[in-house]
């Protein structure tokens, strides 16, 4: 067996997987509190990537950087997270909140509309061409861990560590803080939560902000690792992120992380050992398989309904 290839694919899978996990977290959190599939989530991630690119351009562009690299990357993440988070809040306030009590199909269609609107807006504002983060211009990609078969570039380390930090932070927030408690209560039973004096509308806004901010961070990560971004990048990533959320068990936060890593690793290994053209097909097969065998996902709880 070729260990070099195996380790390389493992590293790639972990990198992509942490991006998917971050996107999946947004899906799973929103689904938890609203029982809504937020189709526009992939576009939020795309806008996050463009905000990161905007920060890069404002700091002089990749070739004539006027600020230090550490500051640049910190600014990218901060701006993308805040920008994407606010975008998520706006989407919730104007496209979903008026439909809170509508038939279930209405918010889904509205979400599709938002997704298309955002994609077309990005096309209008940024054009159809691919933009590049050109990470290799300001980060020395040969740096990192190189031991035997193990090759991790510094950017990949950064991405994996940032994703890990964000996930740990989120877990602590949800399990320890007051807001997290309110979120869990809202997810459990929205009506009962509001009767207990929880401002449900605010909790939902906070959920959207956090979920979208994570997607924004994921957008910057993809830009840093794979360089090129485009207005269509959100669609497929959104699909994969949702798949990750479902595989892990929708509504479950550790499930989304596990699902993201599963999908990332499956994709990397199928690209390495089978064929990169059919990696979407393999991810799709995993989704169908999980749904058929265990509809609640790997870590999800069965939804018991009594009528």
């Amino acid at each position, binding site marked *: 067996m070729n260990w070099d290839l195996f380790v390389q694919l493992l590293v790639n899978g972990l990198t992509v997987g942490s991006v998917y996990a971050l996107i999946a977290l947004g899906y799973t959190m929103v689904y938890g509190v609203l029982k809504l599939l937020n189709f526009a989530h992939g576009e939020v991630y795309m806008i996050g990537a463009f905000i990161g690119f905007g920060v890069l351009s404002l700091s002089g562009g990749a070739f004539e950087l006027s600020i230090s690299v550490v500051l640049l990357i910190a600014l990218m993440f901060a701006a993308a997270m805040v920008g994407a988070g606010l975008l998520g809040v706006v989407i919730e306030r104007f496209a979903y909140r008026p439909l809170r009590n509508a038939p279930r199909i209405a918010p889904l269609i509205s979400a599709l509309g938002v997704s298309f609107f955002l994609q077309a807006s990005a096309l*209008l504002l940024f054009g159809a061409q691919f933009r590049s983060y050109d990470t290799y211009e300001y980060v020395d990609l040969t740096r990192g861990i190189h031991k035997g078969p193990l090759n991790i570039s510094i950017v990949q380390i950064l991405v994996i560590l940032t994703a890990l930090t964000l996930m740990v932070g989120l877990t602590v927030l949800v399990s320890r803080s007051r807001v997290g408690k309110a979120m869990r209560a809202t997810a459990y039973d929205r009506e009962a939560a509001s009767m207990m004096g929880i401002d449900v509308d605010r909790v939902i806004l906070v959920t959207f902000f956090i979920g979208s901010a994570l997607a924004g961070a994921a957008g910057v990560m993809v830009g840093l690792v794979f360089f090129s971004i485009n207005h269509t990048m959100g669609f497929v990533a959104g699909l994969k992120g949702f798949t990750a959320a479902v595989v892990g068990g929708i509504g479950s936060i550790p499930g989304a992380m596990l699902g993201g890593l599963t999908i990332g690793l499956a994709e990397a290994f199928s690209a390495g050992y089978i064929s990169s053209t059919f990696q979407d097909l393999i991810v799709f097969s995993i989704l169908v398989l999980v749904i058929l065998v265990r509809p609640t996902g790997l870590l999800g709880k069965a939804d018991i309904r009594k009528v």
Partner: protein
Amino acid sequence: MPQLPKDETQDVAGQPRIGVDDWVASKEGRTEGHAGALTPLREGLDRISGSARLAIVVALAAIFPLLTESDYLVRVGVNTLLFALLALGLNVVVGYAGLLDLGYIAFYGFGAYVYAVLSSSHFDVHLPTIVSVPVVVLASALLGLLLGLPSRRLVGDYLAIVSLFFAQIFVTLLVNSNRITPPWSDQAVDFTGGPNGIAELDSLGLFGWEADSITSLFYVALVVFTVVVVGLHFVSESRTGRAWRALREDPLAAEVMSMPINRLKLLAFAFGAGVAGLTGAVFAAVQEGVFPNNFSVTLLITIYAMVILGGVGSLTGVIIGAILITVLPEVLENPDQARLLFYGLVVLTLLARLRPWRRLAAVLTGTVAFGLVVHAVVGAVWSRGTAGAILEPTALTRWIDDWVLLPSSPRTIGNVAFVVLVAAVLGLTLLRGRRRLAALVPVLYLAAFVWENRLVDEPSITRILLLGALLVVLMNARPQGLLGTSRVEIV
């Protein structure tokens, strides 16, 4: 089964009707006060019977190619018919059975490709239409049945995403199935022509007659359309149609009423897929070729917009939606017509929403005056702001030139204005009363500014923007569509 007393099964004046909840049935009537201009339209349409409506549409469509010399317009007519067919098929799955099928576009593509394989030199198979079209319909319906299988266990959102994923996979397969080595042979076989698709297809024909011109294809499409509408009308009125609607309203209740819900779901999928496949075959024949990028998700959203705009579940509504959404983008292609459409729509919307008319007059004069003032001020202090001009001026545009700011190289400033406009429109929905009226004036002017400087030059992007916005606005304002009846939930 005990017999009901006879008088209870009949409509007797003053007595409640069996099977109709009067409170629900009269709900529309009670809220009519603010239903706006659509109610008379719907009532007028209701007065014409279904068959008369169909006859009018078909008769109008039939004389359409005689009125125009241009092949292009006939082609637009064919597209409209094809879109209407697609919307009708989708209406079965989404409108009747309430299943959110986002893989619908794949059935359309599948039908087109099966037709292409059966009637081209790709495998050197040239089946006559009378064989190939039924094969296409059956194959698509079978695929629909197969992909409907997950709907047995998946509901709502899960079904939506799995089927959306399927649509995505379908295009991937089309692009990559050009060098597959089947297990029974050693040679790679090109199934789909890869990214280049399959071209030079046979035309549709029957007993020696061949549809070789676009006009004859238009009539073929019209015949297919008529057959499908009549067929769907009967299906919708049948036992199965009623069962589908029951399934849509409440799957659990339907199941308790001993309806075979899984079989009904599969049947809806198969029906929708069959119609989509049939449309795909006609489309392939019209285009004389099939290519993977014909079946993108954008098309799917367009069809959804048609079904939803017209009114989910209403045949007439879906057809009107299809006509509106196919014809409007054609109008957008020409800047002059697009301009008329834009200002016309703005004024119409204001006309419908602003009462009494004094307010409307105030807002319109306010906007015109506001624009003139802004134009004068900016022209005096920033010469670049009015340096641009509309190419090929007409009487209307010369007037606009003196009203809307047209900076030279408007790209960046237009982009900023677009973002501000979106924010402003959203903000406008939060305001009430006089403040909203006051804020409306600058927002209208800003909209005109963005339109003239940015959107008029990008018809394809504008189309998608408008479609997306339409879906959101419609869901917020009128979820049942133009001609649908609103659903009443009794808890």
